[in-house]
Each structure stands twice: as C-alpha cells, then as structure tokens.
C-alpha cells in the first residue's frame, strides 16, 4: 500500500489537470475583462487622417452608433480583417470609424489606397496617447460604441468572418433593438 502512495498522489494530480483542461474549455482564458465595457468611452479629440486640420471629438460622434476599428499599416493582422470589414461595412448597420494607430499618415494613406477604404470617417492617433485611454493593447482592436457614447462590445485581434457572424453582428443587433 505504501508503495502505491506516489501513484495515488499522481492520479489525484491527473484529476486536477483534467479538471483544468475542462475548465479552460468552458471559460475563455484569454478574455481580458475590459473595465470600459458598458461604460462611457473615454474622451478624445483627434485629427482626421485626410484633413489633419479638422479634429473629431467624442461629442461630435454622439447620436449615432459606430464601430471604432483600431488599425495600422504596420499591422499584419489588420490586413487579414480588412477584407472582412470592407465586405460587411455596407450592411453593418452602424458607421465604421477607422482609428489609425501609431502610424505615419503617409503610410496609412498608402495602405488604404492599396487595400481600399471602407471607413466612413478616419481619425489618426500617431503618438498613440489616446489609445492608452481606450486600453488598446495593439492593433487590430474594435470597439462598438452606441449613440450615447457607451462601449457595448470590444474585440481584441482581427475580426474574422466567424467573429463577425457570431459576435459582432449579434452585438450590433442587440444594441439597435434596445435603442428602438
């Protein structure tokens, strides 16, 4: 019996690991809770990408819901989500606002010229300071912001067709339904 103790102890450990695997399939271990979720979006006042003299603030965008999409020309995954966003933009139901992050304007414009520009409005945050208020980890990230300026949904990483169908569209539908 004594000599079986190490074996028994190890099997308990196996049980624990099995539980860990099961637990991880039930929960999303990568879900980084956004403290901003269902809170008002942070204030910002950023220049437009194509007319840097004009600034856009949070107040300017109140009244209409929009999807704020953080992207950059240096970001490879942004190229992955770009066709998905472009295809969905006309039927999205909300305005698509591009948030150009830590990017020299010339590079961003080249990139948009090459890949197409689905954005209704483009703002630029070259120093990346405002992005800190949004808690941006990197590009791409997307924030769904309602007419009252509250963040309703956030996605870190590229919006794949799957994310679009299973998460973003339902989130938009729920938001629009609530607004009626």
């Amino acid at each position, binding site marked *: 019996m004594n*000599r*079986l103790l*190490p*074996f028994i102890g*190890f*099997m308990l*450990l*196996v049980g*624990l*690991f*099995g*539980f*860990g*695997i099961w*637990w*991880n*399939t039930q929960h*999303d*271990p*990568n879900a980084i809770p956004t403290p901003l979720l269902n809170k008002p979006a942070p204030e910002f006042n950023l220049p437009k990408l194509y007319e840097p003299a004009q600034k856009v603030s949070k107040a300017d965008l109140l009244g209409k819901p929009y999807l704020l999409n953080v992207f*950059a020309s*240096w*970001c*490879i995954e942004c190229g992955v989500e770009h066709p998905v966003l472009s295809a969905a933009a006309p039927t999205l139901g909300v305005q698509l606002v591009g948030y150009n*992050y*830590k990017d020299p304007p010339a590079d961003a414009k080249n990139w948009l010229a090459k890949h197409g520009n689905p954005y209704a409005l483009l703002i630029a945050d070259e*120093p*990346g*300071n405002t992005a800190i208020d949004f808690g941006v980890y*990197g*590009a791409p990230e997307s924030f769904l912001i309602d007419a009252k300026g509250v963040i309703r949904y956030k996605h870190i990483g590229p919006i794949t067709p799957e994310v679009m169908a299973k998460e973003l569209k339902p989130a938009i539908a729920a938001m629009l339904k609530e607004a009626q």
Partner: protein
Amino acid sequence: MTPELGQLALILALLLALAQSILPLVGAWRGNRALMAVARPAAAGQAVFVAMAFGILAWAFLRFDFSVQYVADNSNLALPWYYRIAAVWGAHEGSLLLWILILNVWTIALAALSQKLPEVFASRVIAVMGLIAVGFLAFIIFTSNPFGRLLPMPGDGADLNPVLQDPGMTFHPPMLYMGYVGFSVAFAFSIAALLGGELEQAWVRWARPWTNMAWAFLTCGIVAGSWWAYAELGWGGWWFWDPVENASFMPWLVGAALIHAQAVTEKRGSLRAWTILLSIFAFSLSLLGTFLVRSGVLTSVHAFASDPRRGVFILAFLTIVVGGSLLLYALRAPKVLGGKAFNVVSRETVLLIGNLMFAVAAAMVLLGTLFPLIGDALNLGRISVGPPYFGFLFPLLMAPVVLLMPFGPFLRWGKGDAPVLKGLLLRVVVAALACAIVAAFLVDGNLKAIVGVAAGVWVVVGVLLYALKRWREAPRGRRYPGEMAGMLLAHLGVGIFVIGVLLSESLSVTRDVRMAPGETQHIGSYDFRFDGVHHTTGPNWTADQGTVTVTRGEKQIAVMHPQKRTYPRGQVQTESAVDAGVTRDLYVALGEPMDANNLEGAWALRLYTKPFIRWIWGGGLLMMLGGVVCATDKRFRLKRAAKAEGVVDAGATLQVGESRA
C-alpha cells in the same frame, strides 16, 4: 517543398522511435539478442531524422521562408540572423522540436557510451528513451506541426517576441532543456532496473555522471533565466516564483536530492527505492515543467485554448509515462531493495534529511504553483499564492540543509563519530559568529543581512575545513578526485549564493524618481546624474536612450544607457542598464516621459543599488561547475574488468587513510 521534407523526417523518426522502444523491450523480455541489437541503430536513425527536421526548420528561418506559418509568426525581414536561429525555439512548436532534438543528443551519447553495460540492461534503457521520444514526436506530428504552410505567403513575417530578443534568452531554453531531458537518463535507468527486477551498484555508479551533468545544465539554464529576468524585465528582481520559473525549479530541487541519493545507493547500496522514486520524480517534474509552460493549464497561453486537443494529449502522455512508472515502482520496488544498515549518526542520515527537505520543498513549490487550479476546482475562485508563501516556506525548509551541510562530508558512512563533529561545530560556530559581528557593524544591524553573512560563512568555512582535512590526510594525487572537488565547489556555491541572496535582498535600495536633465539623485555614496534622452536605432527597433552618469565623490564610476525600445509591431521593451561589480550592481531602468509634450525632457527613472547581487549567480555557476567536475571523475568510467566492490571510492580512501594514521 523542403518544409514537407521536414515533416516527413519527423514521421520517419517516429517510426524509428517505435522500433527503438518496442523491439528491444520484447528482446530483453524474451532473451532475443537480435531484437535487443535493434536499439542502437534505431536510435541513431531517429537522431538523423530529427536533426534533419530541425535543420530544415532552421534553414526556413534563415532564408525567410514565410510560406511556413511558424516562420511567418516568429520572424521578419529585419530580424538579425542569430535571433532567427533562436526563433526556431521561440514558440510552442519549435521548442518541442528542440526538446526532441536534445533528447536524441542524450540518447546517442547514452547509446555510444553504454557498450560496456550488460546487453539486456542497456537495451532496456535505450528502449525507455525511445518511448519518451515516441510520445514527443507524436505530440509534434499530431498537434503541433512546425512545418504547416501559410497561404497566401505574406511578404513579411510578424516578429519574434521582443522579450526573447536578448542574448541570455537565446541560450536559456537549450540549457534548460538539456537539464530537463538529461534527467530522462536516470529515469530510463530506473525503469530498466524495475523492469529487470535488479539494480546493481555498478549501474548506479554509471548513471551518476549523467544525473550530475543534467543537473549542471539545469542549474546553468536557471541562472541564465534569472540573469535575463534581472537584466531585461526592468524590475531589478532575479526570481519571481512565477509558474514558469517554478516549473524549472522543481526538477532542480529533486535533481539535487537525486544526486545525493544516488551517491548513497552507489556506495552503500541503501536507499535504492528512494533513488528510483526520485529519478522518476525528477523526470516527471521535467515533463510537467515543459508541459505546464506549454499547455496553458496554468498560465492560459493562447495556443492551448484554441486547441484543447493539445491539453488532452499532454495529459494522456503524462498519465502513461508518470502513472505507468509509478505503478511499475509500486509493483517491482520490493525486488530491488538491499544495502547496508546505517547508524543514526552517519553520513547516510544527514544525506537523507537533506533529501527529505529537498523533496518537501519541491512539493511545496508544486502546491503553490498549482494553487490557482486547486482554487478553481474547489470553487474558491482563482487564487494565486505569490512570493509571501514561497518566500516564507522555502527558507524555512532549506535552513536544515544549510545547517547540516558542513557536517555531511565529515561524517563517515554507516557510523560517524561524535567527537569529530564537536570540534567542527566549535570552529564553524566561532567563524560564523565572528563574521556576523563584523558584518553587524558594516550593515547597521540589519538582521537579515547578518543572518546571511553568518549562514554563508557557516557553509564556506565548513567546506574549507573539509578541503583542509583532505589536504592533510589523503595521499598526494588522491586528495581531490573529481567527485570530491565537484562536491566542494557546489557546496561552496551554496554558501556564496546564500550570502548573495540575503545581502542583496536586505540591503538593496530602490528609488522611483522623476528626473529632468542635469538633476542628481544620491543613493548611499553614489550620485546618479541624468543627462537626458535621445533617439537611437538598432537592426529592428528604435529606442529612446537615456544617459545616466554615476559618480562617487569626485570619481566617475559609470556612464549608463538605459533604453526603451519599440519594435516594429509596436511592442515596447525596456533594456535596463547595469553596471556590474563584485560587491554591488548599479541598475537604471528608463520609465516614461513625464509630460506629453516633454518640454523639460523629464523622465521617470528607476534607480537601484544592489549589493552583492552578483554572488547569487556566482554561487549558481559554482554549483553548476561542481556538477560538471563531479561528472568527470575517473571512477565513473565503466571498466568491464573492474568489479563493483573493488573500485576504491573517495569516502573509502579517506577511511583507509585515517585507519593508517
């Protein structure tokens, strides 16, 4: 086309590994020499194909083959060639490939050097190594293929995690894996002994240098990792008790116990079951370490969540390997028992106490590491225990080891004599007290620092006294054989390490400050003057580089350049500046600019002075050196002619010398 060849090579390696493991085991069971003879050629063939696969992946990195997903994910055009080589093991798939490559290196060495072991035993040992390889190769091929293609091929890749772009980090994983995988040799020996139902002391003697080398590599890997964390992470700490570090520390602790247990078993034949159990534990914890880091059960690594198959595979593999060996142990261990009885006052007793302390410490670390998981299981929420738990319990468990360390070598096997101990005790106590009193004045009565000096001196004086005894009593040329010298070096390392830890922990000064150019901060007798920040660039990064000039009185000590680097994908990485010294390190990390427009050029800086911190790694390196020197002892080389009992061992030489005198 080439990446597919890599995958093909892995599949062939898997088939050869199956041959290497199954046929010799059947052969050893049936007494069929032809089947046993398959072991070595199959191992050689497996090694060729694994090396080929590794080479192909490295080649894909060198020539920027971004059509390979793994290459595109972990390198880009701007990455220098040496980091592209390191990128091969920079993420999950490649690091497994490195693991299996290193396993093959050990297997080949084992196959080449085991010619003089009995055929049945040697073929079993090689077969067990083959079984481990089967598990890992299957894991790579079925769940973690590094050769998967990415279509369409991107023009440029992502980047190797900037945290890993450091010389210390290129070198750390291979060393660590050499250690982890090296314990597979002792493991294979134990399993082969359990399968055969006999354990000869000569075989244990043959296995000892392997364990020593594995442990030395592991020590080196841990020291490199600790040094890297210190230099790179910018917190000035050298050990954080995080799961990744603990994963490497547990096999180290058990490995240290195993080294000593093997010595007892080899020389006296006792503690056999314990030696076998420890070698199973050391390797199991190595596997657990590899997997805990990789599987994400604990740290929630991205790859795992997306592919639960990996976790299930890992768990199944662990269950078969560890569960199987422990079951085998339960059934067969009584067969291999034996050895000489020993007295309460004896070297065996001291070694056993040390062993138990190491084992309990490893269990304590395991418990602490798994705590979040246990919390989930008992529905208590995700609780972590951190440095307070480890920092309290670990020194408590290690205190007996440090206290007993000077006495172990002085005691004889079987039955020691108390009077020798009394004389020794008196000397080490006097030495430790004297140094503690001197230290008390130098450190202003800081208790932790005084304890550090006393404990360190205690160990060091004990080691020096024993070295002196050998010098006086053993005949010239036999005074310090490899095994003896290795032991002395490693124990000396422990003393140095203890001093380094306690002095740097208690006397370090940290200061977070805002500094404008020209401003000066005083820490102790050092003046840190901030000379501003300018922009600089490297091969694949841009950086803000600060300049800090350190003076002491009139004399300039160092000009330091801490950096804040930005890599192409926007990741920011601090590069601390360290001015190293024997008695103190000066350490500066650059924080953030203090205002958005940065009119004044003021920055947040973190300044440290860290007395004696280098002794921590110095002690670690001495321990490593001890392991290596020990492994070179001529006595461990197997001679077919030498009878197990006829070989003179270091302990026996001493006893002979004493009885002559």
